[in-house]
């Protein structure tokens, strides 16, 4: 039976009167499933990702993780949730500029528990950067930086990885390498939620959710309609 790992109910976000970005989203994320969020710019994909990962607070609705309401947690509890439960991959990589690739990965370990250089090195080797451990972000290409970002998200073996346009700034080969990594970690039981504009990439996931004007308009499992929204 599919295990629900994250559950969102009635999730809405507005930035002021009449500026609703998300409206009444209901969504369950299943362990080991690769979910792709698609939709036009401004449709609310990134906002949904931020709410699910606890980076943002909903105007109404709840996100439940392992039976606990994420946004009822204290700020310290939410920080603990982020370092222990999830991994984040950003479109702009967001690496710490003055740390090496290895140290950037070890930083995530430091927040999670204890830095382990061997594990951090293994995570970077897994993304094909075993030879770039001591390089700083400014010395790496965009694709390499994104792979460091993926290694940083993977190193603590999180239950869920939220990736916001992880291939948006990558060339075709680098994008393929990153997508292959996501496929691998999904097979190992990790849940991946990925935002993309690219329909071809969208088809690679187990589940494709399309968002428009802050609402889920289609929700397809392996190209089969899971839940009709319109």
């Amino acid at each position, binding site marked *: 039976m599919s295990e629900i790992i994250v559950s969102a109910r009635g999730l809405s976000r507005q930035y002021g009167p009449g500026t609703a970005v998300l409206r009444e989203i209901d969504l369950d994320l299943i362990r080991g499933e690769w979910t792709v969020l698609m939709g036009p710019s401004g449709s609310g994909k*990134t906002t949904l990702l931020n709410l699910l990962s606890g980076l943002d607070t909903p105007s109404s609705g709840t996100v439940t993780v392992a039976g606990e309401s994420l946004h009822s947690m204290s700020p310290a509890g939410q920080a603990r949730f982020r370092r222990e439960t999830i991994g984040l991959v950003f479109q702009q990589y*967001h690496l710490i*500029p003055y740390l090496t690739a290895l140290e950037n990965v070890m*930083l995530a370990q430091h927040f999670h528990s204890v830095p382990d250089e061997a594990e951090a090195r293994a995570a970077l080797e897994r993304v094909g950067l075993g030879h770039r451990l001591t390089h700083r972000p400014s010395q790496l290409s965009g694709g390499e930086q994104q792979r460091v970002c993926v290694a940083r998200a993977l190193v603590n073996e999180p239950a869920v990885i939220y990736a916001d346009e992880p291939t948006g700034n990558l060339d075709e080969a680098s994008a393929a390498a990153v997508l292959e990594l996501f496929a691998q970690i999904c097979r190992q039981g990790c849940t991946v939620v990925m935002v993309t504009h690219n329909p071809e990439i969208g088809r690679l996931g187990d589940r494709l959710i399309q968002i428009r004007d802050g609402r889920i308009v289609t929700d397809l499992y392996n190209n089969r309609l899971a839940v009709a929204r319109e």
Partner: protein
Amino acid sequence: MFKLMLRRAAAHRPRRLVAGTLAVTVAAIMVTALLGVSLEIRSKIGRDLQAYGANILVLGRAAAGGGDLLSPVPEDYLREGDLGPLDALPASPLLYGVGRMGERPLALVGVRPERVRQVSPWWQVKGEWPSGDGALVGRNAAQVLAVKTGDRIDLQVGGQRRSLQVTGLLTTGGSEDDQVVLSLPLLQELSGRTGLVSLVQVSAAGDKEPADRVAAQLQGQVPGATVRLLAQTAHAEERVLGKVRFLLILVAAAAVVTALLCLLSTVTAGVLERGTEIGVLKALGAPDRFIAGLFRWEALAAAGSGGLLGWALGLALGQFISRTVFETPLGFHWVTLPGALGVSLAVALAAAWAPVRQAVQIQPATILRGE
């Protein structure tokens, strides 16, 4: 990992750390220099205030108004042998007497020249101070007696006659201009009051204690003496000291506030510049204390290095101020080190408080989408 990030962040943007360090250095320089000067201000300004003369009188019974100033009773005077408690102070024992030159009465005063010079440095002597059978004649008295330096005068005190040489003429602007000044032993001998003095003038301004405290300490230490504080002089000195101290504090406070504002703007700029980094750290689950620590320790590093550098430079500035203004070198005071470091650390923590609060309140979602 925390230390590594601190080191790397400092090396990544060295100019910010240097700016913070310089701001703290300025505060530490001023605090060290002015604290050092302030610690010695009483003795330094006191030396100058001695020009105003005695601020404490230690009086025998006769001089205190309990009897005739020229009383023949030895108990109405102070015994020189009892004046030990005054040895460490600028103090001038005086004996008053009267004599005659022919038919003309003369007011006489016996002094110890080396002591009177300490307490009344404004006395101007044209000629020599008296010793042995010498006399210093006040300017007005010299006119009345029609004598000049080198003349001899025949003085009669009680039943004794003595021919004295005028060693010099005295100008004080006070009652001494009308008197004849003899050495204390001579007047004691002529007036039959060996070992006795009428009063002692004390100038406590050069000491480390306020005059009223010195006066209180002297009370009861000299047998038969009444200690009287010349309140107007003593209070004027305290007022001057208080005002100079207040001025030093104001200047130091202005330097500290300036440093605080400079460091505040430096740390605030750091938080703004590193907003994305803070957002990433929060997204990775960094505890607030980790993020706060990055900025607090950066400010403390500036405080530590700036405090030490400022202390060293402040010692030099204090020395310069002391030599230029007071014309004396400034002593070394260890207390200036904890003083400078304490103020530097307090400035760092105060300057970091608001920016650190701002840093921990950053919303990662907002900052990472570039707002």
